[in-house]
């Protein structure tokens, strides 16, 4: 039987981007917190390297062997056989995916929180795509603004404000919602190429800006500034300039002496009593099973694992999985629709060094920044060009029909052109749909015998496809204005498994269609909170981390302020 441990106030499952920030307000308030993490501490000197094979081919900092053993399966529609997705984009480590992420740290737009009602107001009810389960969020941008601000300060975000309390500054993003103050650090410096792209965008009449990043542009709270060495993507920062929770909020929480970290702890079930309250969690560590009792459980795994652990945690009170008596766990899931439009220039653009967060971004064609009348879609995509190019990837470049794939003619081509290719990241406003969801795979199991998560990706989405194609055309226009001689637009397809995975435990006021309430607590199990992008009901046209961290802090603060009623 499981070994019973001493009860704690709060157990947090997963010390990644979300759990890693939530522990800080809890520990500061004096609550006794047990942080359970399947991975362990990574050592910047031993584990982080300027090495493409290590980071990008073997993915040793972006997907642990433990995650790989639980890799979800994926299928487009229920009529297909689901197959292993190949790579699980979940990192088991203290700091989780925030160790290796691009650290682009965006606030969503006010429009993102009210996409349904704003689209109906501006374009009529028929503008809402068929089959979407989109709802307005139960919180507004104004509700979340103070928490965005806290995370920008506590974690450390560099950037340039475009809207401080309504005062517009064209050096920042003029389309952003009003902020209470400037970023705590100036934006990362531009590279020659990103500055060149900014100029080209201005010639088109657009308003480009240097995007925000949880990367130190100068020394911040005793941590070093970025060295731009070119191995940030899927890698950890050896100088500590990337502000993962492992170097920021988690050490701050440990210093309070109220957070105890249990590393290499694989949580297997959340346990409930006959009244439907959670009583704690079981986990395995060094081949022994433990039961950690707690007054409150905060579930903070990666999106796929949040739904999976709930569905696995069946009990008398929750026969179909924890907090799933309304059948909503796994629903309103979606992966972010994104695209890379690449381009070849007739001269060396020199983007070898830098990092994906060192870039130039255009927001004219995202969200509701432009009039969609007659376009046949709502939303759009942000356009982002960036630096950091690795040698294997560069040598594997598209030859654009200008050279064969091997031999001396190929050598001559890559000698000239490997340093002339630019990559981009286009991110759409992606919506949830009825036919995109997560459940447990009926056949594939992990080494413990538990089913893995199964993704049903849902196939073609006309709204997202049109939005992405529209953005790709704008990206091509931008590249051509900057002097590109070749532009490649890949097919606009949705993801199977994704590093930007949302939903499955959506936040909303209606318990019939949402798993957690506006504070992030379960509609069914009152002392269970859920953290992460799994609570987000739409993506926005940008990276999710800052938003899920702001929500996580807000949930933790709500818990502190309502301790007696929530802890019972």
């Amino acid at each position, binding site marked *: 039987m499981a070994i019973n441990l001493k009860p704690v106030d709060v157990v947090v499952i997963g010390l990644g981007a979300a759990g890693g920030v939530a522990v800080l307000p809890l520990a500061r308030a004096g609550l006794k917190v047990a942080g359970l993490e399947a991975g362990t501490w990574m050592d910047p000197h031993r584990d982080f390297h300027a090495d493409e094979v290590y980071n990008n081919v073997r993915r*040793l900092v972006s997907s642990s062997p433990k995650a790989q053993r639980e890799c979800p399966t994926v299928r487009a529609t229920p009529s297909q056989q689901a197959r292993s997705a190949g790579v699980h984009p979940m990192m088991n480590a203290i700091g989780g995916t925030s160790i290796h992420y691009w650290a682009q740290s965006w606030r969503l737009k006010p429009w993102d929180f009210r996409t349904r009602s704003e689209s109906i107001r501006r374009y009529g009810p028929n503008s809402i795509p068929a089959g979407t389960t989109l709802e307005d969020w139960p919180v507004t941008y104004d509700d979340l603004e103070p928490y965005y601000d806290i995370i920008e300060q506590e974690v450390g975000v560099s950037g340039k404000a475009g809207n401080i309390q309504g005062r517009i500054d064209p050096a920042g993003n003029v389309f952003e919602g009003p902020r209470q103050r400037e970023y705590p650090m100036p934006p990362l410096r531009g590279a020659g190429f990103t500055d060149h792209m900014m100029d080209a965008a201005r010639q088109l009449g657009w308003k480009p800006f240097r995007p925000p990043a949880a990367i130190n542009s100068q020394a911040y709270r005793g941590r070093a500034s970025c060295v731009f060495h070119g191995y940030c993507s899927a890698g950890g920062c050896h100088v500590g300039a990337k502000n993962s929770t492992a170097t920021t909020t988690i050490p701050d929480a440990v210093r309070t002496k109220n957070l105890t970290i249990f590393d290499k702890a694989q949580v297997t079930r959340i346990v409930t009593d006959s009244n439907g309250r959670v009583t704690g969690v079981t986990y395995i560590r060094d081949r022994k099973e433990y039961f950690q009792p707690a007054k409150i459980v905060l579930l903070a795994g990666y999106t796929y694992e949040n739904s999976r652990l709930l569905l696995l945690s069946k009990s008398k009170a929750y026969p179909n999985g924890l907090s799933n008596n309304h059948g909503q766990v796994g629903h309103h899931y979606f992966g972010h629709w994104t695209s890379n439009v690449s381009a070849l220039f007739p001269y060396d653009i020199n983007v070898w060094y830098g990092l994906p967060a060192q870039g130039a971004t255009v927001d004219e064609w995202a969200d509701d920044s432009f009039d969609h009348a007659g376009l046949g879609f709502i939303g759009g995509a942000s356009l982002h060009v960036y630096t950091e190019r690795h040698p294997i990837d560069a040598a*594997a470049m598209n030859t654009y029909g200008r050279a064969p794939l091997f031999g001396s003619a190929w050598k001559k081509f890559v000698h000239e052109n490997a340093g002339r290719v630019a990559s981009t990241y286009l991110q759409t406003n992606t919506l949830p749909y009825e036919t995109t969801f997560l459940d447990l795979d009926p056949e594939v199991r992990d080494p413990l015998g538990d089913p893995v998560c199964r993704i049903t990706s849902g196939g073609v989405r006309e709204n997202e496809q049109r939005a992405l194609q529209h953005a790709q055309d704008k990206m091509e226009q931008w590249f051509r204005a900057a002097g590109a001689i070749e532009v490649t637009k890949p097919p606009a397809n949705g993801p199977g498994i994704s590093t930007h995975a949302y939903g499955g435990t959506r936040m909303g006021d209606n318990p019939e269609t949402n798993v957690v309430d506006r504070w992030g607590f379960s509609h069914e199990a009152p002392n269970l909170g859920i953290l992460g992008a799994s609570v987000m009901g739409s993506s926005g046209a940008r990276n999710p981390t800052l938003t899920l961290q702001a929500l996580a802090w807000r949930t933790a603060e709500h818990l502190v302020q309502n301790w007696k009623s929530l802890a019972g």
Partner: protein
Amino acid sequence: MNSKEERDSNVSRRELIQSAAFVPLAALTLSAQQPAAKGALTPGQMKTLVAFIDRLIPRDELGPGAVESGAQIYIDRVLAGPNANEKATFIQGLEAIDAYAKRVHGAALAELSAENRDQVLNEMIDSPFFSRARRLTLEGMFSDPYYGGNKNFAGWDLIRYPGPRPAVAAEDQALKADVKPYRVSAYGTKFGQ
């Protein structure tokens, strides 16, 4: 947790937790980075691989090719280690090329002239093996020399990659800049080649 069924499943679950199938997390940490004791290919298979990658990236006036850079050493090592799951498929591919070369051109790949080998490569250019072998050759030639290829940084010189500098100044990121190459492995000099 009271029914007989639940008790039985708890017993089998406990066995699973303690069994060899459930490798503890500590044992998995970074094991993928350990080099294999010996390579994956026989001398005959290595000969075919060398004949193949020698035409993929040949030595010419732009400098060393894949073979002189040691891409075959990288491939041999990864097929014995982190890529062991594709070893059998890869060897089947090498054998299939040799069989094809004998049937169509009358001799094993390694015995054919450069022109005939180029012909074989062109004839198989759409095959999955060609893509995979090409990809592994690029990994070998353009990866950190720690992994056995990119000898004397020949791959990085070919594509004019300036190398992983410890710190990069703004002028190293200027448009059209001719950045002086920095030729050091991320693992220093203390690794066996």
